[in-house]
């Protein structure tokens, strides 16, 4: 008897579920047909019916850009420190340790990602390894989340970030930046299902006309689109990541030209030990790597194109 009563609950639960499904399923259809009836008079380019939401993968520069207040900056000029040989400088500590600890979040191919054997590879990994080599020390990678790196206050958990970090005014308050080691263009992308083929198809202005939704990383946005989540019709990421997703068969297209170029630099925590000498040294090493073609070579290897020449940032 008791069992039977429990079983009777099952169809009831199924009914409730079905009701919820059809309820949520109906609303987008209804809104779509309402728009369709409102639009037929419009001629020329068919405005795509996309929600004014852009998916962003935990990258504050894109969030700032969408909000219309991105302040990309340049690295401050770095002068030769007057008191060379300061034993308290991070450079001296690293040399003494024989090892530089570099933060990288292996969540961003092709900058930094994992191999099946657990090792880290990517453009940033190679650049960091080369910097360590030219400093004459070993390299050790720490893997905090990206937002822990950009937030500063590293508590001396690692020495430098070689993580394709954009120089911004806000970040400069808490981090010291070297000259850029390369530049990535930020690219808007749309799901092929949305019907958007160019910026002129968007029923709103960018930046300013859309809100951002954040997911843990860039790749999650691509996956949300592939999974058929219609609320994520648009995505902004670096052009290299967008291309990577397209190559992997994610049903998206790049929309319009890159919207802005980001200068990407090595960063050091300002709240840590003094690091004038380390900053000067690494800045010089990056200059050398630009001059001798090392960076161009690595960029070609990982991105298939040379991203080391700074296209003048449009904003």
């Amino acid at each position, binding site marked *: 008897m008791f069992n039977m009563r429990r079983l009777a609950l099952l169809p009831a639960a199924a009914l409730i579920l079905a009701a919820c499904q059809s309820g949520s399923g109906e609303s987008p259809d209804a809104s779509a047909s309402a728009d369709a009836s409102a639009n037929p008079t419009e001629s020329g380019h068919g405005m795509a019916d996309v929600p004014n939401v852009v998916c962003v993968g935990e990258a504050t520069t894109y969030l700032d850009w969408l909000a219309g207040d991105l302040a990309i900056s340049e690295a401050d000029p770095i002068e030769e420190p007057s008191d060379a040989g300061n034993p308290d400088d991070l450079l001296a500590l690293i040399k003494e340790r024989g090892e530089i600890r570099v933060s990288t979040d292996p969540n*961003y191919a092709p900058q930094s990602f994992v191999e099946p054997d657990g090792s880290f590879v990517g453009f940033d990994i190679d650049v960091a390894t080369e910097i360590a080599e030219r400093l004459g020390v070993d390299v050790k990678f720490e893997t905090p*989340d990206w937002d822990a790196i950009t937030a500063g206050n590293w508590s001396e958990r690692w020495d430098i970030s070689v993580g394709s970090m954009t120089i911004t005014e806000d970040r400069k308050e808490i981090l010291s930046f070297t000259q850029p080691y390369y530049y990535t263009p930020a690219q808007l992308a749309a799901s092929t299902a949305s019907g958007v083929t160019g910026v002129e198809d968007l029923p709103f202005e960018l930046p300013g006309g859309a809100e951002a939704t954040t997911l843990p990383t860039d*790749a999650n946005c691509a996956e949300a689109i*592939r*999974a058929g989540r219609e609320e994520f019709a648009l995505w902004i990421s670096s052009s290299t990541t967008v291309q990577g997703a397209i190559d992997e068969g*994610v049903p998206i297209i790049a929309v319009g030209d890159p919207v802005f170029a980001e200068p990407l630099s090595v960063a050091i925590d300002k709240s840590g030990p003094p690091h004038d000498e380390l900053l000067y040294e690494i800045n010089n090493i990056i200059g050398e790597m630009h001059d001798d073609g090392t960076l161009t070579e690595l960029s070609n290897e990982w991105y298939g194109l040379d991203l080391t020449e700074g296209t003048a940032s449009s904003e």
Partner: protein
Amino acid sequence: MTTPSATIQPPPLLAEIIESQRQRRRWFRGQFALVWVALVGALLAALWATDNIDTEWMVTWAPFIVGGAGTTILVCVISIVLATLLAIFGAIARMSSNAILFAISSLYVSLVRGTPLLVQIYFIFFALPQMGIRLDAVPAGILALSFNYGAYMTEIFRAGIQAVPGGQREAAQALGMPEALVMRRVVLPQAVRIVIPAIGNDFIAMIKDSALISTIAVQELLWRAQRAGTRDFKTLQALLIAAAVYWLLTIIFSYFQDRLEQRMARGDR
């Protein structure tokens, strides 16, 4: 006709009943297995039908992701031991007539049970260093898990200690044992036996909760699955592998916990 050996066989009717019971049990098990296979099969088929499952990728990455299980288990084993120690002290303090001890342990339990584990993890990893205490990811994760579970287990231990019959304590006191010795030699050993099934339960729960410490870069199961998944836009497959491993781990530990529970129950006479 009756041979001597036939006399020790059960009478025909009883044998029939036993046989039919055995058959019913076999039938039950058969149905059970069938339902599991059918449901899990349907689940997998539904996933396959998404056309998004790359088995080759899963085979390539399974060793890397499964390798994170070692960290998961290591962290959980250390954490459950520390949590148990914390819980013993917490429980004793919580039943103490000393107001200060009682206040401290009550605050501990209230604070920990009143805040999300994820917030505690972030706090230990990001906020403590600003007060001068810097723990690496793995120790920070262990601290967070043991601190959190210690509070829940404090209540378990308190219940366990209170479940030891009062006569035991009285008898020990009558023998002239000092209070501390009564606790250590008489009450606690019996309480531990009572709470061991609950500890096993918490350990299994902790294996799943430990996924949260992936957020502070402990390279356990979920961390590895996420990193492998985002690399190739294959989060679904990566999470499938991780989910399977978590499930397998809980099945294995549940089995041992059942055995332990039966063994412990044998002592109750």
